[in-house]
């Protein structure tokens, strides 16, 4: 596992941050982001796929009333791929029983999808070697989040109650804030030595003006907000003849 990894630094892999607006479709936007990034890595081809297709063709009814990552991947498998965002654009409302998938050419498809082990080291290894993955976290602290690394506790962010899907795009380490540490340890005669905080980089679906340009960071190594509960990813496999992978995660 490399010490740092940030897929945003590789050209054409991560699509622009989306805004789900009043539609409860984080699950569809995140699944779409996962497929887009895997297509970029596997085929060096930048694609933006249709989130609206996932909403309209979802087998579980109104896609704007919530859904699960695996429902999105099952829809992609059932529809034999996804149309482009340009052909089948996002409207922030779902039209149940009005699936338009057959009308449009498919620009990306998947072989299957898998759930990864609930271990942060394993997740980091998979992220660095294969590409971004989807995770589902407890959304609670994001209501008040502006920037920085959230170091949550099970008390203020229950890891068993996960209710928001986002795309994991990288990891790294940053220096702790000296002042913050000192404030919590006033009885200490000497200031605590500066230490680094490992973090995950996550892509949200609330627009680029939210958080850190649409992204946020969570502490890595403490199952912050239940990040290890459902690490799921689609699999995009190259034909046997063209197996060699050309893109690796930039540090």
């Amino acid at each position: 596992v490399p010490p740092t990894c940030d897929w945003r630094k590789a050209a054409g892999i991560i699509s622009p941050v989306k805004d789900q607006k009043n539609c409860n479709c984080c699950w569809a936007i995140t699944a779409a982001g996962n497929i887009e990034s895997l297509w970029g890595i596997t085929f060096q081809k930048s694609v933006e796929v249709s989130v609206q297709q996932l909403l309209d063709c979802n087998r579980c009814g109104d896609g704007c009333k919530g859904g699960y990552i695996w429902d999105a991947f099952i829809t992609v498998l059932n529809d034999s791929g996804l149309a482009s965002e340009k052909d089948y654009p996002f409207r922030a409302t779902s039209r149940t029983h009005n699936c338009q998938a057959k009308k449009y050419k498919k620009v990306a498809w998947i072989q299957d999808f898998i759930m990864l082990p609930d271990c942060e080291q394993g997740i980091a290894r998979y992220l660095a070697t294969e590409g971004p993955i989807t995770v589902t976290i407890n959304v609670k602290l994001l209501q008040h989040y502006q920037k920085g690394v959230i170091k949550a506790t099970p008390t203020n962010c229950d890891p068993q109650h996960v209710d928001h899907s986002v795309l994991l795009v990288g990891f790294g380490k940053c220096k702790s804030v000296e002042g913050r540490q000192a404030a919590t340890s006033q009885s200490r005669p000497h200031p605590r030595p500066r230490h680094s905080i490992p973090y995950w980089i996550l892509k949200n679906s609330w627009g680029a003006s939210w958080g850190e340009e649409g992204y946020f960071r969570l502490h890595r190594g403490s199952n912050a907000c239940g990040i290890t509960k459902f690490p799921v990813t689609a699999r995009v496999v190259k034909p046997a003849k063209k197996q060699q992978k050309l893109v690796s995660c930039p540090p």
Partner: protein
Amino acid sequence: GSRRGQDPGPQPLKLKEVFTLFQIRYNRSYSNPAEYARRLDIFARNLAEAQRLQEEDLGTAEFGVTPFSDLTEEEFGQLYGLQRAAGRALNVDRKVGSDERGQT
């Protein structure tokens, strides 16, 4: 403590000013005075909660006013969480769909 006894008047006004800035920044308007008062109250509670999180957090995170500062925790969870029914979070057995071949 040293300010005790001084005019407490500006305090609510400051909160209202912050709330007005929030309304302008995020283009919020409310249908009637009662709804405005309710949202102002929620906003004040959320500011207090953000301050508490800021004090407790051991990372580098900054918490404060966001586009969701006029929503209750329940409203926020329903609007931006992925649950299909209010109050029910995702809680399925992790083994479903795992690598245990042969299982549905």
